């Protein structure tokens, strides 16, 4: 437990001290959302209809951008070999890193989303549902992304390969997250969507550390 918390704190302080990562992710998120009204026109009704989906897709892409930093630096300088040899199981190493990644990227994305929701003219109930859906969905994004990051360690063109691997797997959280906001806007209640999103989260929590650890072992062989 102490080792897990120690690794979590280490990764979190690295992410926050190097500073750039959180700021860049937030900057990309804001810019991507801001681009859409320029592209599709500023009519409020249309922006309201597509707003939740736009914010979710932008959050997804922003999370994707920060993923290659998850294991790469430690892989390059040999820290990952030491972690693999330590008493902490590799699955828990992955979990600690994903938790730190979520606190450094997913959580800020979630916290800034209500302000972006104002840009696309969502009403208060939808904003609340959007916030909740992102809060529940972004941990799954970090976990699923860790599988892609571990698989593409040391690959040529790591960023592109990572995107190709991870984006199809990101589609279920996207469907249910954006669907939750649409359902709440339509008045039919977002509870079912949010519960399925929780289920996706729990499934990712159970399965992704094993897949990522297996991929890391392949990379370290």
């Amino acid at each position, binding site marked *: 437990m102490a080792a897990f918390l120690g690794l979590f704190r280490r990764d979190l302080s690295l992410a926050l001290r190097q500073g750039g990562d959180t700021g860049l992710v937030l900057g990309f998120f804001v810019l991507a959302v801001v681009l859409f009204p320029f592209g599709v026109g500023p009519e409020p009704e249309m922006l309201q209809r597509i707003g939740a989906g736009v914010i979710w897709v932008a959050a997804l892409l922003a999370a994707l951008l920060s993923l290659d930093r998850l294991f790469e630096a430690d892989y390059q300088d040999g820290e990952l070999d030491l972690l693999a040899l330590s008493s902490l199981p590799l699955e828990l190493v992955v979990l600690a890193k994903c938790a730190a990644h979520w606190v450094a990227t997913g959580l800020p994305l979630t916290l800034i989303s209500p302000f972006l929701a104002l840009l696309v003219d969502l009403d208060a109930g939808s904003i609340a549902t959007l916030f909740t859906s992102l809060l529940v969905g972004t941990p799954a994004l970090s976990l699923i992304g860790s*599988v892609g990051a571990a698989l593409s360690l040391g690959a040529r063109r790591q960023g*592109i390969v990572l995107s*190709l*691997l991870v984006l199809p797997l990101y589609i279920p959280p996207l469907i249910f997250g954006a669907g939750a906001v649409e359902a709440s806007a339509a008045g039919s209640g977002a509870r079912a969507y949010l519960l399925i999103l929780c289920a996706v989260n729990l499934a990712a929590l159970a399965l992704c550390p094993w*897949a990522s650890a297996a991929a890391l072992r*392949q*990379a370290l062989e």
Partner: protein
Amino acid sequence: MINWLANPARFVRLSAKAVPWCGWTAAVVLAIGLFWSLFVAPPDYQQGDTVRIMYVHVPAAWMALSVYLFVAVASAVGLVWRHPLAEVAARAAAPIGAAFTFICLATGSLWGRPMWGAWWVWDARLTSVLILFFLYLGYIALVNAFDDHSRGGRAGAVLALVGVVNLPIIKFSVDWWNTLHQPASVMRVGGPRIDISMLAPLLIMALGFTLLFVVLLMLRMRTALNERRAMALRLNAGAAPAPRPGRERAVSAHTAVP
């Protein structure tokens, strides 16, 4: 038998004999199946002759799913038992599976236009098969993304196993969601619901597609194994001791690695 075939040289020898047999059988079965589907089988009472796209679309879909399962199983065998040919088989099968998935999506789109009025709808079955197509492409990209050949194979194996979760989603998508796509008519509890006059050519086409897959798989595996041998021979020749003077020019042309 799987262990007996594990020797790559033996596999290359045996598949050299098997490929012509399987190839001609596949050609004959496909010819019979196509003739039967296009000319002998009855038109549908609702769809008329457009239903004949089914005889290509459905077997392609079955192959798309089965080949992914094959890739996943071969990956598991390669990871767990380190069977020498398992990785080769998985890498060889993936592009064939991607091609079948593309045929399924394209023929489905061509069928959807007259039937549903749309080239594409975002219903559960179509979306999950599209995700399967992207999983194939991601697998192919990943195994080719590493300079170290075996690292690519192992990484791809993990990805193939992660993506297996999509297969039950595709199969049961028409039951779990309200979809435009037709629900299961052949592989369902209670037996096939389709008339035998249509089921027979469908199964013959499925057999033909399977034989085609086996032939293409064997050809691709033989090519991959021969490539490996060629690479090994080139590396060995490059490491040969310096030749005697006078023969230098002829030998150096052969040992030049591109």
